[in-house]
């Protein structure tokens, strides 16, 4: 198992992949992808029990990750490839015609690692309920991790799922909210304030943990703690504070890089800030 320094090195490469993919496609969502690079690296390289070389849809006796905010597909694809689900060089096909790496994750092209399409927001947590229920029926004690954006919580369906999971005690789900406070049109506090999320989740029957999603030590420790806590009747929700655009100075502190691609000059500037640790694709 990699130590946290190795995880940080992987995350740096993942961030380079994100920049290069979005630049190569001239479109995509770098901001949230960069913000969640540490989380996905920790999940796939350290926390989850899973089998990258032998992907199968059913995930028997494996932890499952569901990406509900599908627009951060660049970080998802990079981590899957770097983890061995599919060849790293395939990252170059992101958003291109006939690619398995669709703009938003999809299953139709049979990309290993993807179990459901996402992109239209608010649906991943509901899907996670089904995966979790199937695991219980199968006497499979592995967990279901579901990542959502904070802006995504404005979708009503999320609250249907939150109510279901909390009231019916679906306790093999670990939800994670990317709490970066930004969405396409601006800060969430201006677009549609989310209020006190911790209290809201608790009122819905969840145990809430908080972590700094850009501090690898905190990410690994909190995810481990969540895994230990889960299975005790209360589902776990992690409020993960992140910085949109983390790792690239000019992409941080603004919502402008939510869904905009860097040009070649901006790409080079960004890459100069991110160490190449595993070799670019």
């Amino acid at each position: 198992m990699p130590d946290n320094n190795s995880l940080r090195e992987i995350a740096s490469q993942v961030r380079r992949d994100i920049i290069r993919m979005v630049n190569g496609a001239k479109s995509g969502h770098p901001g949230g992808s960069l913000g969640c690079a540490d989380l996905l690296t920790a999940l796939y390289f350290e926390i989850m029990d899973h089998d990258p070389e032998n992907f199968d849809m059913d995930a028997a006796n494996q932890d499952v990750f569901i990406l509900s905010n599908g627009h951060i597909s660049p970080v998802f694809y990079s981590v899957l490839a770097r983890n061995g689900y599919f060849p790293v060089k395939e990252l170059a096909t992101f958003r291109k015609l006939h690619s398995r790496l669709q703009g938003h994750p999809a299953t139709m092209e049979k990309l290993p690692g993807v179990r459901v399409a996402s992109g239209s927001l608010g649906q991943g947590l509901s899907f996670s309920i089904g995966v979790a229920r199937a695991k219980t029926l199968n006497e499979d004690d592995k967990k279901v991790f579901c990542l959502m954006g904070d802006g995504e919580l404005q979708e009503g369906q999320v609250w249907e799922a939150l109510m279901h999971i909390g009231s019916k005690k679906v306790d093999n789900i670990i939800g994670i909210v990317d709490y970066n406070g930004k969405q396409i049109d601006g800060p969430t506090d201006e677009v549609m304030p989310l209020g006190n999320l911790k209290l809201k989740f608790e009122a819905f029957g969840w145990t809430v943990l908080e972590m700094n999603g850009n501090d690898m030590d905190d990410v690994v420790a909190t995810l481990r703690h969540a895994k230990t806590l889960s299975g005790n009747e209360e589902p776990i929700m992690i409020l993960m504070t992140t910085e949109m655009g983390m790792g690239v100075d000019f992409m941080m502190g603004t919502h402008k890089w939510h869904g905009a691609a860097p040009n070649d000059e901006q790409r080079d500037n960004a890459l100069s800030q991110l160490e190449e640790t595993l070799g670019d694709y």
Partner: protein
Amino acid sequence: MKEVENREIRQMKEYKIIDKRDTRSGFGEALYELGQSNPNVVALCADLTGSLKMNAFADNFPERFFQMGIAEANMIGTAAGLTIGGYIPFTGTFANFSTARVYDQIRQEVAYSEKNVKICASHAGITLGEDGATHQTLEDIGLMKMLPGMTVINPCDFNQTKQATKAIADHIGPVYLRFGRPVVPNFITDDQEFEIGKALKLIDGKDVSIFATGHLVWEALEAAKILNRKGISAEVVNIHTIKPLDEKAVLESARKTGCIVTAEEHSLNGGLGDSVAQLMARNFPVPQEYVAVMDSFGQSGTPAELMKQYGLDAGHIVASAEKAIGRKV
């Protein structure tokens, strides 16, 4: 109208009413039997367990039944997720809440994600009755058939609904199964073979093809009797699977008779009639008349009153058949 040559009253196959039952009970019985025979079948319901006749399954297989509350979007997503691990989820709610209310959820997580989910919808069409137009969906066949990979089935009576429910459990891929609320004639024998995508020819004829689905199939049989007394030989074909359409059967019948009536408890936009018209336009254009709801919402009333009000009965099928025959060149 153009005279039909050599009019004669023929000996026509008769369909007897075995009993009168609601199609939703056929679904409920089959679901319970599937629960016994297939341990992978699970069921989800959005607070309409009694209306969908899912009680027997819920009572006997509580660990495989999920009460989802009034949260249909969450139900569709949960159903899709249950396929991860090999389960075959059957969702149950009214047709309107099974389709229009959750269209994007079905589109993204079921159809586009190719999940083996069976969306089972009761109270379809106008025969939901007194509750009125908020609950009477007349667009659901159209909505569902537009989704790539979606199979769309509208059985005609209790026995066929039971047969269809069992058949879709063995079919791999998303299915929309549509049935209704009222008690109607049950006339398909319980030993009738049901094959998804295979039309069932009920009556042979040579002057006009009546392609009917759902509750309109019985009306089509009644219409064929009336037409027979007028010396018109109508062929009645039960199209229980609207998608994939049995193109061979439709073309074969239409080539023989030279004109078509489609009959369905659905809007004329997007239903069986449109599927047939599209097929014919591309292969063998012939006169076609629609027995369907003419681009309007429904209203409150008894099922019988509404079927008459919106022209969904044997009388209207007869008139449409005569009109179609009259349009033959």
